[in-house]
């Protein structure tokens, strides 16, 4: 997608002008900054019913709308809507495309005002904290002092943790799902494989491919294929595909997509490149690699939450090997160490990391119960309107 196409995307935008630059962790003052976002439901009189939803690495702010590029339903359509768990009749939901993204918020494909050319790899390296800084500006824009909740899975969960840690007075509750307080060595390793696939594509051209009207599609597709495997589980892959052959009765003694699982991955890769920018992929995976909440607090994760009044609900999934349960448990231990208010559920699922995006009744019951309890403590009306 080109910058021009990006501007045609539906949804709302907040522009931070040169008078209000975003101070990034790397020291750069970034301006102008566009934050593309969607909202659902309406704000109550005292602005106490706002929930910020944070999307994952390749997600976007089209939580409950058809995706304008793929036409597919919103990624959390199961959860967001009237009468649903994230009830648009009761809550004001906000989701913004992350800083560095490619769905309308400022990222490497935007024009660098100093050169008049796309930023490409001259875009400053951003962090999870920077993404959250941009969200803070958006929340300020709405005049919201305190979010009722910040909810996110995977990288979205990192943002929820960052919010709760850095802005504890502005968050009533936080729900970090299938996430970790730091990217593990294994996660960094997976991310690096993806980046190297992009960098190795001759069409990458040191990141300047937008200037040459080309795209490192093969590299980005391989990055997506490798990453996609980490989002599933062995059991899920086996159930879905087994060793079934793709449109043939016998193996071909060649390197075509003999197996259904190969065909599936190739499809995942090839459709991904239509909706995602390779440079954005580099920047956002890097932001995840750099995330280490304990390191930001003298090596003690508990220090990130000392004195916190935030109500936490930590959720993990048994078959998630990208953000396995011990990562969530480490967060729980740190929260216990400061006597924080925390719930923690490990949901039994064989669907791997992606379970947080899927229909998992136990996960939904947990999220619903937690939010109902939190709403009661926040003084928000209950589900039946009482």
């Amino acid at each position, binding site marked *: 997608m080109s910058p021009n196409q990006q501007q045609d995307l539906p949804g709302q935008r907040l522009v931070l002008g040169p008078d209000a630059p975003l101070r990034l962790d790397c020291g750069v003052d970034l301006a102008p900054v566009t934050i593309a976002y969607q909202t659902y439901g309406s704000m109550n009189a005292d602005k106490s019913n706002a929930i910020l939803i944070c999307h994952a690495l390749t997600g976007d702010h089209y939580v409950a709308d058809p995706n304008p590029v793929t036409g597919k339903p919103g990624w959390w359509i199961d959860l967001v809507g009237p009468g649903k768990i994230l009830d648009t009749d009761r809550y004001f939901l906000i989701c913004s495309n992350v800083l560095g993204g490619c769905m309308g918020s400022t990222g490497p494909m935007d024009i660098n005002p100093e050169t008049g050319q796309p930023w490409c790899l001259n875009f400053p390296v951003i962090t999870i904290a920077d993404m959250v800084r941009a969200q803070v500006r958006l929340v300020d824009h709405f005049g919201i002092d305190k979010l009722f909740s910040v909810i996110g899975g995977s990288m979205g969960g990192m943002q929820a943790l960052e919010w709760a840690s850095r802005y504890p007075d502005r968050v009533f509750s936080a729900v970090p799902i299938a996430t970790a307080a730091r990217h593990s060595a294994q996660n960094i390793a997976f991310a690096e494989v993806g980046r190297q696939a992009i960098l190795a594509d001759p069409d990458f051209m040191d990141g300047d491919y937008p200037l040459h009207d080309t795209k490192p599609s093969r590299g980005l597709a391989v990055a997506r294929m490798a990453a996609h495997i980490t989002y599933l589980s062995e059991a899920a892959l086996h159930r879905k595909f087994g060793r079934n052959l793709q449109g043939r009765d016998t193996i071909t003694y060649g390197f075509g997509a003999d197996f259904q699982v190969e065909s599936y991955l190739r499809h995942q890769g090839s459709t991904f490149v239509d909706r995602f920018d390779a440079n954005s992929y580099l920047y956002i995976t890097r932001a995840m690699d750099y995330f280490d909440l304990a390191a930001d607090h003298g090596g003690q994760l508990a220090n990130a939450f000392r004195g916190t009044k935030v109500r936490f609900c930590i959720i993990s999934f048994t078959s998630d090997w990208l953000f396995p349960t011990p990562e969530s448990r480490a967060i729980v231990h740190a929260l216990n*160490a400061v006597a924080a*208010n925390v*719930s923690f*559920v490990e949901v039994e699922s064989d669907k791997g990391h992606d379970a947080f995006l899927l229909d998992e009744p136990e996960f939904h*019951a947990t999220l619903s*119960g937690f939010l109902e309890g939190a709403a009661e403590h926040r003084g928000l009306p209950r589900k039946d309107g009482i």
Partner: protein
Amino acid sequence: MNHPSMRIDLQLIADMIEPGSRVLDVGCGEGVLLDYLNRFKQVDGRGVELSMAGVRSAVAHGLSVIQGDADTDLKDYPSGAFDYVVLSQTLQATRNPKLVLRDLLRIGRRAVVSFPNFGYWKVRLGLLATGRMPVTSTLTYQWYDTPNIHFCTIADFVALCAEEGIEVEKSLSLNSDGTVRFDAGGRLSNWLSEQAVFLLKKA
């Protein structure tokens, strides 16, 4: 959650807790006591439960509960973080009851502990008469599938408290017919009581 059916020992525990206090319920199950305390005593309540099924049910009911183990996870909590730490019908299932008891009174200003009394006359008589491990209405497991690995009698528990310098502020014991006796430390209690509830404090 259905409170009228709350276990009688839970009701006795609830009665010992001051309204508005901070409570940690270790081994909270599905959170029946916590839910009661939240609603009727406005406590700031948290729970720890070993079984994930219990945790899921509690959290789905809006309670702040985590999956955890009394033997290993209490060490994370800071000293004096709670007004009360409750351990109901769980002490006998821990690997190291003495250390757990110490942790309860480190984390909480007070601890409320309930446990089945192995000195109950039916238990004593059962073992004496049949030569088989006792199975009663409060001790429902067979020896091979019981989670209860550290049984004690009321007299044992009182002795441990004395040894650990723990003051018994209040103690209640329960007969099988639900009769409450108001001094579990009394000599008859150890014979007549099926279970006991102790309110403890560091001496």
